[in-house]
């Protein structure tokens, strides 16, 4: 095995060296391409882009959680038409490509006579898509609870809504916390698509600055690093939640068919 280790180290090192050498032969590491990142005005410009990214992500997360909760209630409803309607909506939004939804939303709002900046169309598109997936997560959480929970709630005289609000939903949310957090990470990544409808976020600003300084590649590298740092921190959080979950219930995290494995945009 030591031979394999040495060999793989050599091969990996060779790949890195070749790529670095080629990039540096093309002057991609020259100081003047990286110099803008030492200027306060450029950093501030990019930072405010990041603030806009986080702003739309926060709003969309709030909306998606509410929308997802509503859809989940609808899908668990005792009324058949409500169940059908919400199931249809969930399936529709899950199968509709997010980017098309993002292109579609400003036009739809315009048709309805509402002229908004690209902030709200982006937030609404993110809400519809991620909300429908969160709905599936919430539902799986409720269904995973022991049936005795609901029976016990009913036997002490709680009605449907009371048992949902005080007994079922809190446990479901707690159990699904890791899945919920990872879906919210996906949402954060998805906000980068806002750049394509000219929402003034990190990628858009990096794009503009890259054209200005002629260092698009370097700008995108910085954007990638920023996303990696943020998402890595958040996924650490998700993993911590999962470990705590496992310790508390002594069981594996509940898997939702087709949710964890979903590679968001």
């Amino acid at each position: 095995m030591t031979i394999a280790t040495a060999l793989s180290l050599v091969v990996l090192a060779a790949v890195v060296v070749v790529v670095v050498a080629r990039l540096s032969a093309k002057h991609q590491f020259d100081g003047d391409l990286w110099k803008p990142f030492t200027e306060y005005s450029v950093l501030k410009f990019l930072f405010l882009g990041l603030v806009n990214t986080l702003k739309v992500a926060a709003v969309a997360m709030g909306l998606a959680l509410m929308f997802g909760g509503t859809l989940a209630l609808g899908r668990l409803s005792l009324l058949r038409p409500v169940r059908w309607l919400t199931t249809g909506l969930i399936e529709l939004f899950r199968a509709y490509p997010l980017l098309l939804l993002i292109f579609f939303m400003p036009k739809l709002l315009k048709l309805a006579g509402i002229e908004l900046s690209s902030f709200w169309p982006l937030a609404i598109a993110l809400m519809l898509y991620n909300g429908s997936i969160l709905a599936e997560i919430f539902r799986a959480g409720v269904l995973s609870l022991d049936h005795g929970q609901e029976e016990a709630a009913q036997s002490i005289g709680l009605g449907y809504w009371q048992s949902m609000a005080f007994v079922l939903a809190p446990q479901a949310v707690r159990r699904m916390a890791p899945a919920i957090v990872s879906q919210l990470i996906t949402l954060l990544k998805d906000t980068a698509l806002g750049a394509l409808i000219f929402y003034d976020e990190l990628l858009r600003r990096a794009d503009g600055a890259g054209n200005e300084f002629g260092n698009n590649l370097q700008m995108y590298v910085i954007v990638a690093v920023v996303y990696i740092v943020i998402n890595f921190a958040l996924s650490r959080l998700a993993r911590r939640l999962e470990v705590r979950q496992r310790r508390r219930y002594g069981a594996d995290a509940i898997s939702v068919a087709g949710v964890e494995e979903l590679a968001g945009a």
Partner: protein
Amino acid sequence: MRVILDNLDTFTMALGVTLLLSLLSFAGAFLVGAALAAARVSPVPPLRQAATLLTELFRNIPLVVLLFLLYFGIPKIDIRFSPFITAVIGMSLYTGAYMGETIRSGINSVAVGQAEAARSLGLGFGQVLGIVVLPQALRTVVQPIGNLFSAHAKNTAIAASISVKDLTYQANKLGQENAEAVTTLLAVGMVYVVLLLGAGYGFAVLERRTAIRR
């Protein structure tokens, strides 16, 4: 609706591009994923670490940023690829990272005794993985791979951002030129929905066929 009928040729071409991109890059993602999963369970520490690093990188970069990076980065190392090839590479890497995790979870679900039995017969690491463990592992992850394909096929829409002329690109472009954006985007979205339902059905059949009866 007229926009679509008038430009039926364009949309048929675009549908072909979307389908080809989905299938080619999913095949690529499968290879990348299998390689990453094999590296992550291998007894060679540097390979394990490199695979973990790559997985984390590709999963945490937004796909559109990854595509932009490749689109601007590849020409810088003196290679010229069309946007389509760039998109195939980018999507293979992106979905490949998720695929690697999926396959790895399948590998972990195979009983340790299987690998031990194979080793005791004198098979090496590659043989244990290729002949004994992977065939069993893949059967358990047909359903997650199907879900991954749905997400992947939808994500191909993002290739429009580096001017791959797929369904999303044409829908957005023609919609803008003809002021019938809402109907165009809606109709094209329905095409994706139908495609995904079809793919979902296909994978459901595959899942039934490959299910391990115990």
